[in-house]
């Protein structure tokens, strides 16, 4: 008898409890329904975004633009740049079209980075109208970058496909850790260039999509919060590799900037840095 009584009693309580909870006269139920409409699932992404933006993102970007230049500078004074004789045979690597779209992407990307930092450190760099202008420039540069990045992606995708020797290149850090001129395993593009290429094009596409959401404010706020999180993390990664790319082109290998201006690379340089490149 007791065995039936106890579950029966519990069931009875539960049923009456349910009945009370379902009557709209109950204020707790009403407030619970209001909260669902009012705040939604803020704890899911809203809290995450708030905590990340409060504690992580500005510090992450500060870390990226302070530590990476320091490491690159240390590399420059400790190991120093590579230089190759440029008076020997020269190989035509980049045609005019690629060079033009590369510089189009480069210019717009630099603007994206600069205006992005204006928004991230808006308190210091551009409160008020300056910040709003920076956001507009960010939008225009993003459109120009997208126009340039698509042909660049299609033009280089075949040579940028990962190969097994890219792992070896990464293991020895591309031979940049010593001054020996020993051939490193790399085709037309080395693993570092490939990483930068994929991040800038595929990652750039993700930046474009999330950036479009952030700019246009779609209906779903959770999409907006996720977009902001993705945009910030990807942005930090892109800025990091962007700094390395600039250092490599301007300082780490003497005269390598010339190849993107005239289109020619020195054969002596290719033999060491891109030995698997068949020209």
């Amino acid at each position, binding site marked *: 008898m007791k065995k039936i009584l106890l579950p029966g009693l519990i069931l009875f309580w539960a049923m009456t409890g349910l009945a009370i909870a379902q*009557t*709209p*006269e109950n204020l707790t139920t009403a407030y619970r329904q209001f909260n669902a409409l009012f705040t939604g699932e803020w704890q899911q992404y*809203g809290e995450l975004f708030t905590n990340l933006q409060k504690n992580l993102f*500005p510090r992450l970007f500060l870390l990226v633009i302070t530590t990476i230049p320091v490491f690159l500078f240390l590399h420059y004074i400790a190991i120093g740049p590579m230089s190759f004789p440029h008076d020997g045979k020269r190989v035509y690597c980049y045609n005019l079209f690629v060079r033009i779209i590369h510089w189009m992407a480069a210019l717009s990307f630099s603007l994206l980075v600069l205006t992005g930092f204006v*928004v991230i450190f808006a308190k210091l760099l551009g*409160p*008020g109208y300056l910040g709003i202008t920076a956001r507009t420039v960010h939008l*225009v540069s993003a459109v120009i970058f997208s126009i340039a990045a698509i042909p660049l992606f299609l033009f280089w995708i075949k040579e940028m496909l990962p190969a097994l020797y890219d792992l070896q290149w990464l293991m020895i850090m591309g031979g940049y850790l010593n001054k020996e001129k020993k051939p490193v395993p790399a085709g037309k593009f080395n693993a570092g260039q490939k990483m930068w290429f994929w991040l800038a094009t595929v990652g750039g596409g993700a930046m474009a999509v999330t950036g479009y959401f952030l700019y246009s*404010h779609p209906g779903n706020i959770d999409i907006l919060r996720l977009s902001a999180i993705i945009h910030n993390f990807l942005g930090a990664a892109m800025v990091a590799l962007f700094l390395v790319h600039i250092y490599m082109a301007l300082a780490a290998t003497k005269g390598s900037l010339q190849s993107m201006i005239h289109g020619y690379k020195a054969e002596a340089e290719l033999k060491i840095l891109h030995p698997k490149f068949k020209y």
Partner: protein
Amino acid sequence: MGRMKFLCDIERCIDCSGCVVACKEGNHIPVRVNRRRVITIGQGQPGEKSISVACMHCSDAPCIAVCPVDCIYQRDDGIILHDKEACIGCGYCFMACPFGAPQFPSGQVFGARGSMDKCTFCAGGPEETFSVKERKLYGQNRIAEGKVPLCAAMWATKSLLAGDADEVSDVYRERVFKRGSGANAWGWNKAYKNR
């Protein structure tokens, strides 16, 4: 110093939207911006309830935490205000806010958002009190005049209470004591159905 709060008595709110209109007209809010809105549950059914919501003027507010310009600040009495001239319209406060309080007027170049606009508890902004600029940017400064916010003043059923938290809770407690709450509250059932 008191702590300013809104309280909406959902057993009195009848979804007349008087608060929304009062706020919008009295403060000259731009088109497509609503500082205050009314949420209704069970619309058209017995037991329909409505609540009027705006900025909650939170303690430890998420919008203040995420603003990259630090243009949002909290007064000693709990009212959260912001500097529209420093705001860059990035929208982070909108993403951080659980209540959707920050709003952005559109219609700038390339459809860009302008400066954020939100409920000021009718306490103006960082500009000089009662100045033309303050009125133009933030609306009326009724707190400085010693009045409650427009929405709370215009309410037909006196459902929205605004002011010092202790006073508001006193008014509400007396109300609930007199009329009952929840199933015991005065309303249709008690007046007509159970006769």
